[in-house]
């Protein structure tokens, strides 16, 4: 049985909001990055659902490329996390407040 398009969109929207909440509420850099991943996965879900709804492969192609981009971004982000840890021995985003106007 086909899942209705609206349900898929609503689920993805909920996932996106959860991810955004995680980004805004958590102060640990790793948790913020996980929140971003959840936001991106919500986008992937919409693409897959829309791809099925419109009977096209475009959305699925986008998802594959989105996965590649996400992987690249995570690689850079985790390298940055290691680099930041070495410098300041903290993972809390608010501790990085050395610059003032």
């Amino acid at each position, binding site marked *: 049985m086909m899942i209705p*398009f*609206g349900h898929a*969109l609503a689920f*993805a929207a909920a996932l*996106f909001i959860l*991810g*955004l909440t995680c*980004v805004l509420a958590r102060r640990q*850099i790793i948790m*913020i*990055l996980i929140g*971003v991943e959840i*936001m*991106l996965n*919500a*986008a*992937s879900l*919409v*693409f897959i*659902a*829309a791809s099925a*709804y*419109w009977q*096209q492969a*475009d*959305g699925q*192609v*986008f998802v594959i*490329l*989105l996965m590649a*981009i996400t992987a*690249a*971004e995570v690689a*850079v*982000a985790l390298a*940055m996390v290691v*680099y*930041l840890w070495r*410098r*300041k021995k903290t993972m809390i*985003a608010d501790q*990085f*407040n*050395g*610059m003032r*106007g």
Partner: protein
Amino acid sequence: MSVNDLLALTPILILVLGGTALLMVCAWYRAPRPLLAGGVTVALMAALAAGLVPPPATEISGLFSATSYARFFTILWSLLAAAGIMISARYVIDWRLGAGEYVSLVLYAAAGMALLSSATHLLGLFLALETFTLAFYILIACNRRCEFAAEAGLKYLLTGAVATGFMAFGIALIYASSGSLHLPEALTSLTTATGALQAWGFLGWGMFLVAIGFKISLAPFHLWTADVYQGAPAPVSGLLATGSKGAVVAALVGVIAVAGPVWHDLQDLLWFMAVITMLAGAFGAFTQQNLKRLLAYSSVVHMGTLLVGLICQSAEGNVATVFYLVAYVITSFGAFAVIASLADERGEPMHFDQWRGLGYRHPIRCAVLSLFLLSLAGLPATAGFMAKLVIFQAALHSGFTGLVLVGIFASLISFAFYLRVILVLYQSQNETSSWHPGSAMEHAVLTVCASAVLLLGLFPGILLDLISLILT
């Protein structure tokens, strides 16, 4: 992908393959000077290829256009990359930044910017945007000597990642509502879609604009700008302020060209964003004591003004936007290049205390910096003045009097804070220390930027004619 597509992509391929080749070479051969020279050569070759090789197709795989508009920006960003590498040379050598990696990242960023300026498909737009964003994540944080580089990198990474999330979800919703990722169809179906689908579509475009707002630092998404520009090396800040924002604006010009009546529905939102961006930038800059932060807020004001040109959605507005963009890119990059040319083993002169009286120590470069600041402020006989004139004229013709008044008000405030920097430069002769005399390449870049600013200010007709030619 046919042979014609590959031929049309030649300049981008030169940038990407050249960057990759340099990256491979630097695994075994780490002398910085030849690698830097190689990077400049690759960027100039790409500019040359974009200018000389006529594209056999007008659209590449339905993702990117290969029109003269796309070529114009490919040339501009390639030249910018070349200039960026030239003014980074001393940073790379003195601070041991890893020449091969640095150069190839700048070239990848230029390729991303060139692709973004020519995107006709949401997938192409997204990929191009991510290409240079990923390169900039690393470039910003690459200087291990600077205490704030890592912090700046983190701030750009987090805002960039959130913007990516919004962009991806926005595009997903646009696709869900329209069934197409190709920009013209995706935009027109917004008017034809019905009910819930149309609502999702508008939500998608709204989120898309939020992501764009993060990227070109429109208020209220501009708060990262000053910190990132302060922490990044000056050449990278220069590229970030000009290329990465300019490419997004160039892509937006392409979007509104095909947007049609949909743009009217977004106009009120953009009107509001333009007003608060110009005011937030102008008032934010007022209290700054650091030249790099001041230039960051100045870029916020300029992005707001560029939005005025985009809102017009007329041929005149588009020409004015592109002209303003070119003038801003040259001027702002020049200002960062002056900072880069003064940097020595102590770092860069940033705080106003370090700039006080520097006009007597380094008279020529401080005069050039003053010229750039006056151009950013929009004083007559400079590029900035003509740019402001054409953009406000276009807005008046489209009936946005209120927006023009806010723009002029913001320009007046901006004038005060640019003037403050110039006053600091020519205060009290004594007590300042000298900075680096600057290398020949840095002087060359500054000469080119300064003459371009004067040339565009005195003879704007040349570029205006060219732009109206490539936009039609």
